[in-house]
């Protein structure tokens, strides 16, 4: 399996994970370790920034677990830039998962504010990974302003519905020059495998692991699925076809000359 490189940093695992929704910090820690994940997103709003012994952070003290703070909770570009600066200070990383979802109900990413914030954050020296709708044009615009990757959603966040946006993800993957990480909506290992088979660089999974009856086992399942999908992609999947390809009389003229 080829390693994944984002902003010069190499990852051997293509499974990124979240830290929310676990029933306890201990279970979170066990699940994340079992997943093999090397990039873990942390909601800045959950971190007790004045408390060096923050319970969640204590459970993430492992050399392989790189932290990816996210801006969840902000509603505008301005708030996102401020939150990113706080995160850089508190977690000592210039990596930021940019997510701006002004609507509290469906948590749909705001494309306009996200592009504005990404532009500003890149200028400020951040490694920006924006969470966006599976919008191919927006993804190209983000690439142009210098984001390190794009993170289009598979279906509404937390919905576990899988890759409802598959057709758009395919376009994004086909035309992107930066890594494409499918985020949100991946509810089962088979969804993760599908994204990887499609050529996604990585997937980010949170809810499906965190709320599984056995999160540690589910983390293992996702690890295997992501690896299987990626290896299949690299091996070159054969195409599938419902019917034989009909030949046609269109080239009969070549024999007439």
């Amino acid at each position, binding site marked *: 399996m080829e390693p994944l490189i984002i902003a010069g940093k190499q990852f051997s695992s293509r499974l990124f994970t979240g830290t929310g929704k676990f029933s306890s910090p201990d279970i979170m820690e066990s699940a994340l370790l079992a997943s093999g994940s090397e990039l873990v997103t942390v909601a800045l709003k959950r971190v007790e920034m004045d408390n060096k012994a923050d319970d969640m952070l204590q459970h993430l003290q492992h050399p392989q677990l790189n932290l990816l703070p996210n801006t969840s909770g902000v509603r505008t570009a301005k708030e996102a830039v401020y939150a990113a600066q706080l995160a850089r200070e508190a977690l000592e990383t210039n990596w930021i998962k940019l997510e701006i979802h002004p609507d509290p109900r469906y948590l749909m990413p705001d494309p306009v504010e996200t592009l504005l914030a990404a532009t500003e954050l890149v200028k400020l020296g951040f490694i920006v990974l924006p969470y966006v709708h599976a919008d191919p044009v927006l993804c190209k615009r983000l690439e142009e302003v210098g984001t390190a990757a794009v993170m289009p959603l598979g279906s509404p966040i937390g919905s576990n519905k899988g890759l409802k946006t598959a057709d758009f993800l395919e376009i994004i993957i086909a035309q992107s020059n930066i890594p494409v990480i499918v985020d949100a909506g991946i509810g089962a290992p088979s969804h993760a495998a599908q994204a990887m088979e499609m050529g996604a660089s990585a997937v980010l999974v949170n809810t499906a692991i965190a709320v599984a009856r056995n999160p540690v086992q589910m983390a293992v399942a996702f690890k295997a699925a992501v690896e299987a999908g990626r290896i299949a992609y690299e091996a070159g999947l054969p*195409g599938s076809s419902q019917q034989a390809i009909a030949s*046609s009389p*269109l080239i009969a003229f070549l024999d007439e000359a």
Partner: protein
Amino acid sequence: MFKSIFDQYEWNEVKAGIYAKTSRDVEQALHHQRRSLDDFAALISPAAAPYLAQMAAISNTLTRQRFGNTMQLYIPMYLSNECQNICTYCGFSLDNKIKRKTLSPAEILMETAAIKEMGFDHVLLVTGEAHQQVGTDYFKKVLQLLRPHFSNISMEVQPMDEEDYRELTAEGLHAVLVYQETYHQDDYKKHHPKGRKSNFEYRLETPDRLGRAGIHKMGLGVLIGLEDWRTDSFFTALHLGYLEKTYWQTKYSISFPRLRPFSGGLTPKVVMTDRELVQLICAYRLLNQEVELSISTREEETFRDHIIHLGITAMSAASKTNPGGYVVDAQSLEQFEISDERSAAVIAEMLKGKGYEPVWKDWDPAFSGQ
């Protein structure tokens, strides 16, 4: 820049890879939903020859799905045959002793009237490379002159700097065609021994400059006959893929000029058969559903009539390849001989007869320039 990608490929390795493709590779490529460059290599390989009928059927379906039953029509207007390059295959080559001619504004308008009379609204301006006679300032004036008369103006002239392209785009230029001729560096040198065109890299990076300048459309291609067409086409497809990903707001077209006889001409090193050209056209379509595929009057009537169904989306008609060829100086020397001499009206009727709508206008000057 494409150069950094191009440098990762070695001609002989690419060529060996294409010729090593098997029927199994071709079958896999045919069954893929989205085809990779590696699939394209299989489809242009000798191993794909027995699958041509299937390729044609898929190409026909994909093309009609994307472009409908339509055919874009355009016509070239040769503005000048002045040229400071020596190109072994071209009638305008510096060392070719012909009468040199650059159209004046009045002559351009005479040619324009004749072209408009035929029904065309999309003109392709063509020159050799002569910076004194046909430099950026000349083209600016020509665009200003022609903008009121044509809704779509394309150019096939010498490669220019990014700033030149920016200025010409602002004057209403819609598309630029710039063919690499061959991606084989040594052979390129051999065929372009003298003049600015001998700079392989400057030409190779021309599409990058066009892309940065924000051109609406660019055309790529190689001159078929200079080198192994399969390998050259692989590099063209590689270039196309890079450009589409990088300059994603630009539209692309591919042409397949086969080396034609001309006065004092070169015998092609490689001869491509009709069957092989059909294979190449279909392979491009199977690789890329969106790219425009264009065919000129270099090709013969029967062939042109049939390949309409096989992936082609644009064709020239009633072309003259000499400056002033329509009215001003019809007898001057052509750049190359054309094979399909039918009038625009006859071509349009032929298209209709085959169930295709001839499209004369598909752009508006209001979308170009300021």
